[in-house]
């Protein structure tokens, strides 16, 4: 759809949606803008997929940031390497 959009009305274009997708997802858009975005989403599969991908990414983020324990031997090896790199204090 993107290549055939015209801008003679104040509709939202795909490239604009990409810029404001976070605000849309967080519910931070003013109502007037929100309506235009949702009108666009009705008929634009590309932006629907983009939004779904963003939602999937946000859902996956907590798992990606879980701290994994560092094995003791690895920690010691890293500290040794750092001390050698820094030299005597």
């Amino acid at each position, binding site marked *: *759809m993107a290549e*055939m*959009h*015209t801008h*003679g*009305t104040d509709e939202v274009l795909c490239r604009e949606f990409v810029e404001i997708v976070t605000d849309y997802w967080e*519910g931070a858009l003013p*109502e*007037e803008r929100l*309506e*235009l975005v*949702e*009108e666009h*989403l*009705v*008929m634009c*599969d590309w932006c629907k997929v983009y939004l779904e991908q963003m939602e999937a990414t946000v859902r996956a983020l907590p798992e990606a940031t879980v701290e994994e324990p560092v094995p003791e031997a690895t920690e010691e090896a890293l500290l040794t390497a750092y001390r050698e790199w820094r030299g005597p204090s």
Partner: protein
Amino acid sequence: MEGTELSDLVAYKFLRPGAIGPFSGFAWPAPAGGAGEWVEAATSRGPCRDGIHACEPPHLARWIWEELWEVELDGEIERRRHKLRAPRGRLLRRVDAWSAQTARRFARDCAERAAEHAGVAAPADSRIAAQMAADGDTRARAAEESEDPYVAAHGSAVSAYIAAATALRVGGIERHEAEREWQAAWLARELRLRP
């Protein structure tokens, strides 16, 4: 926009299969022998933080999904740009005349409208207008050839948009508005909607 009491209004709402809100994912209580349960906005039970949304027949073509429902709104109803907002609402009945088959017919008629607009384009716009009309035809054909109700509904929404965009390209905002009015009249007539 100022709040307006529109108590006698007949409002409509397009939903995904199973009466699911397309943006909220909210499962609307479907009517069982009467009207459905009231749904409040801005509560944990509500689908939207800022209100229950629906629209009037003139704007239906902008909101097409697989199911169309007649809804009752209550409280202070506001007319927004292309939709209505109210503190609460409930489903009254499904508009059975809106089906995948109807969507395919609407998609085809809108594609033909786009071709008509392209046919009267000024030379400077004729190439792009023809491309837009061809895109509309492709979308309508995809809707016609698919068994998937989503493809039919989406094809009709896109085809309607393309017809309006082609009209805009060819004749400016007046022709664009006239095209949207034609689409609204088509839906009102074929679906026998109450005004």
